[in-house]
């Protein structure tokens, strides 16, 4: 691989390095330095792209209501059982695109207006219902996220160090000592950022930990929702959320994570 080829690859996808590129980087300090620069630049680029939308829109989270058209307006869905999990998603998008490009006939227009009217009515009703709900909190979103990964609770084998390091590195997190053994580690998209979502084993059962560098809380907050007990605590940078499905001392678990964050060295590269 030549310098030019290496730099083109680094410049296009700084975060990835094929075996061939890695071999080149080992023997080429200039290209390695270029990659380090690009990785640092990409971190700034990500920061620049992650706008605070609520500041621009002048609204407080959460934003408007979820559109909830009535069931009869949505029609019945095709049977997708047994299909590739990604296939229905792609198929749906394609179908929607095609459907919107079909020219409307005169006969179709009244039906379209009727549909639009029913959607508009549903939006109004949905909006009223939504506004009458309690505000969505960080804790509720954490629970919703954790509910989306139910398999994480079943893990018992320790996660390989390389995998854990990769998950932490993606979010710019480093952990020192004091954490319980990690049996699940995933880099999850949460509120506009990749955050480490790990599960540790304790004598009282598994505990989910989410390290939220971008979510500040002023004081510890306990919550109980959907069968989960949780605790959200402030950390030096952002906050830490811990959740369990069984009663236990979550303060101790949260403290061990905060301690691990405080005793960490530089973020691994």
């Amino acid at each position, binding site marked *: 691989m030549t310098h030019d080829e290496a730099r083109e690859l680094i410049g296009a996808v700084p975060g990835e390095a094929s075996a061939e590129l890695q071999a080149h980087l080992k023997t080429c300090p200039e290209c390695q330095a270029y990659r380090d620069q690009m990785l640092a630049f990409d971190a700034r680029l990500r920061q*620049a792209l992650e706008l605070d939308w609520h500041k621009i829109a002048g609204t407080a989270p959460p934003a408007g209501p*979820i559109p909830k058209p009535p069931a009869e307006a949505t029609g019945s869905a095709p049977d997708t059982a047994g299909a590739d999990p990604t296939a*229905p*998603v792609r198929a749906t*998008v394609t179908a929607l695109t095609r459907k919107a490009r079909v020219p409307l006939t005169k006969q179709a227009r009244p039906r379209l207006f009727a549909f639009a009217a029913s959607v508009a009515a549903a939006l109004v009703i949905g909006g009223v219902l939504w506004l009458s709900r309690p505000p969505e909190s960080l804790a509720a979103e954490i629970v919703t996220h954790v*509910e989306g990964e139910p*398999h994480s609770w079943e893990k018992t084998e320790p996660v390989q160090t390389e995998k854990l390091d990769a998950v932490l590195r993606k979010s710019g997190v480093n952990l020192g000592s004091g954490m319980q053994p990690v049996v699940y580690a995933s880099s999850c998209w949460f*509120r506009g950022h990749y955050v480490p979502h790990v599960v540790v084993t304790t004598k009282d059962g598994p505990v989910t930990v989410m390290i939220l560098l971008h979510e500040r809380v002023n004081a510890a907050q306990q919550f109980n929702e959907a069968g989960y007990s949780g605790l959200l605590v402030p950390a030096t940078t952002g906050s830490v959320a811990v959740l369990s499905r069984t009663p236990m001392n979550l303060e101790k678990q949260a403290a061990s994570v905060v301690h691990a964050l405080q005793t960490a060295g530089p973020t691994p590269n």
Partner: protein
Amino acid sequence: MIESGRGEATEEQLARLLESFRSDLMRFAFWLSRDRSIAEDVVQETMLRAWRARNELRNTTALRPWLLTIVRRENARLYERKRLPTVDLDEVIANQDVALALNDADPEIADLRRAILALPDEYREPIVLQVLGGFSTGEIAKELSLTVPAVLTRLFRARNKLREMYGIGTASTEEAP
């Protein structure tokens, strides 16, 4: 019921999940369209389409890339349908909403945001898809109907242009594949 990993999500859970993505989608739509009103329209339409197709969604782990794909296509379709004129960059930056977006306590971030807005669409779109959307090179190629080498070239050039505008030297190799 919709599968969520190995479990199932109720409609209420899906609604909450969709709502949790709203800011993310707004941000994404804004960088694509460079216009707050258009971004809001695009996201509202995206939410509506997602909700109508909820019964076809079998796995909520694929929800985010699915929503982002709809946002991108809705944005493209809106421009195509309305024949929106190409806007002048000075007008874009003079827009009050955009000015708010550019503001940041860190002046370097504000400069970088200006540089991103100034990028031509052909470079801004792939870089936003990659960095903000988390799309792979192959996924970007498929979405933009380009070859993977063409996407790599655009991404390389986009970063070089941004670094130039941002005041950092570019790669020694300007001639991308």
